[in-house]
């Protein structure tokens, strides 16, 4: 039922916006009417012009996410297993994360050229830290009694890692993935602002050059849908991976 109200609210706001554009005579350069945006979006999707950009941005985002998340989790596991390594590297990791990754864009363009590689690397770097941080946190907060249980059972380090630390840290790690998904879209689009020739970010820059505000709005809509789709996929994946963790939650005894 709430969904219907949300939809009604959307229609109401769009109507308001449409009417405002008609009666205020605002230039379509400044604020295109929703009907104009819808038309551009429809044309772009039906004649196939936008699909290539959607594809490129999605691929960049996926690759960046996969690379950034894998390295983030692996580094988190290594640092949590080796206290010396953690104290040695932590200041550097922190410093490298404080730098806005987008500020590194220009140097990546010099190193890797214009195009996909630079954008993927920027995206991966953005995704790296939330995963590293969440992996470390998830493993750090394992209750002492559970660690002692594994010691009592004579578990090796590897067994403790696989049977206790990773499953225990998984919910926190996956929360990191959800944060990374949102950041990855920012990374991919803004990366394309800097280095892209194709992709939705590059198309926004091109639309800006042509003063085509309606196209820009159309792309905003597409970006929003891509973000929602990735978020949804992550949620489904999360639910599947945590199916055992959550097994009893829904019918738990009070």
């Amino acid at each position, binding site marked *: 039922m709430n969904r219907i109200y949300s939809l009604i609210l959307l229609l109401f706001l769009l109507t308001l916006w449409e009417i405002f554009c008609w009666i205020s005579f605002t230039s379509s350069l400044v604020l295109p009417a929703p009907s104009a945006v819808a038309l551009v979006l429809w044309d772009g999707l039906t004649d196939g012009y936008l699909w290539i950009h959607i594809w490129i941005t999605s691929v960049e985002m996926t690759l960046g996410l996969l690379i950034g998340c894998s390295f983030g989790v692996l580094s988190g596991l290594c640092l949590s297993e080796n206290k010396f390594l953690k104290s040695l590297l932590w200041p550097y990791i922190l410093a490298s994360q404080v730098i806005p990754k987008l500020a590194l864009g220009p140097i990546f363009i010099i190193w890797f050229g214009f195009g996909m590689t630079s954008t993927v690397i920027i995206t991966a770097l953005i995704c790296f830290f939330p995963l590293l941080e969440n992996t470390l946190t998830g493993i750090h907060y394992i*209750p002492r*009694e*559970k660690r*002692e*249980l*594994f*010691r*009592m*059972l*004579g*578990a090796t380090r590897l*067994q403790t890692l696989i*049977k*206790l630390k990773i*499953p*225990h840290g*998984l919910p926190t790690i996956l929360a990191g993935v959800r944060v990374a998904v949102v950041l990855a879209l920012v990374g991919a689009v803004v990366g394309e602002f800097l280095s892209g020739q194709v992709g939705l970010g590059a198309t926004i820059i091109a639309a800006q050059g042509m003063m085509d505000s309606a196209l820009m709005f159309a792309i905003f809509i597409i970006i929003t849908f891509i973000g929602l789709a990735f978020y949804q996929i992550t949620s489904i994946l999360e639910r599947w991976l945590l199916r*055992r*963790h959550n*097994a*009893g*939650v829904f*019918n*738990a*005894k009070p």
Partner: protein
Amino acid sequence: MHFVSIKDVTFSYKIDQPVIKNISWDIPKGEFHSLIGRSGCGKTTLLKVVAGLLTPTIGKVSISNTYVSQPSLQTGFVFQSPTLLEWLSVLDNILLPLTISRESNSEQIELGLEILAAVGLKDFSHHYPTELSGGQQSRVAIARALITEPVLLLMDEPFAALDAMTREELQIDLMNLCYRKGTTVLFITHDISEAVYLSDNIALMHNGIIRKNISIEIAKPRENKIRYQSDFNLLCSSIHQIMQTFHSQDEIG
């Protein structure tokens, strides 16, 4: 030498601040011994030393003539909280000690189901820990400790968080299980009547020192109704008085 022999054990986390001091305690095979004392008096530390989780600063612990230097599967440990792994089913939680020692096979699954039945959870093997009540979780924790058929069971206030009725049921089941299997138990509690009901011998600990050993001369197996008899309660109250004396001696000192 006794089955479990604790000899002059002192343990300190910080230099010159021993948590437990000069503990000597012998536990014959098959007996149920309890350690009672106030919170923070060093009970859990002593239990962890016996388990091999902590190495004594001075002194030695031996179990069936072998010095304890690290945890062993011969010793089962039941923690204050059930410490079950939420992502494993009840049966997998119970089989965890065998999975880790790579002994898990179909025979062991049978054994797991048998032990589950013994703790009264036959129909819960495929449930997950979060689906169980507190008392059921404690039962699973005990079953997990028993699966390796340990010769010594160490229990750290396992029933402290349960309601009185559930605690009573679990005490009866635990006593019967250990009595049948001849398991030696070292049990920590701060509940005097629990200790008296379960034990052959009670050690009173105060400020890291065992101040008194009391042997309980009530024949086993014990029926639940003895808890409500006057001599049982008399015994409890005399132990309570002794512990009070320790406390007041401290205040005077």
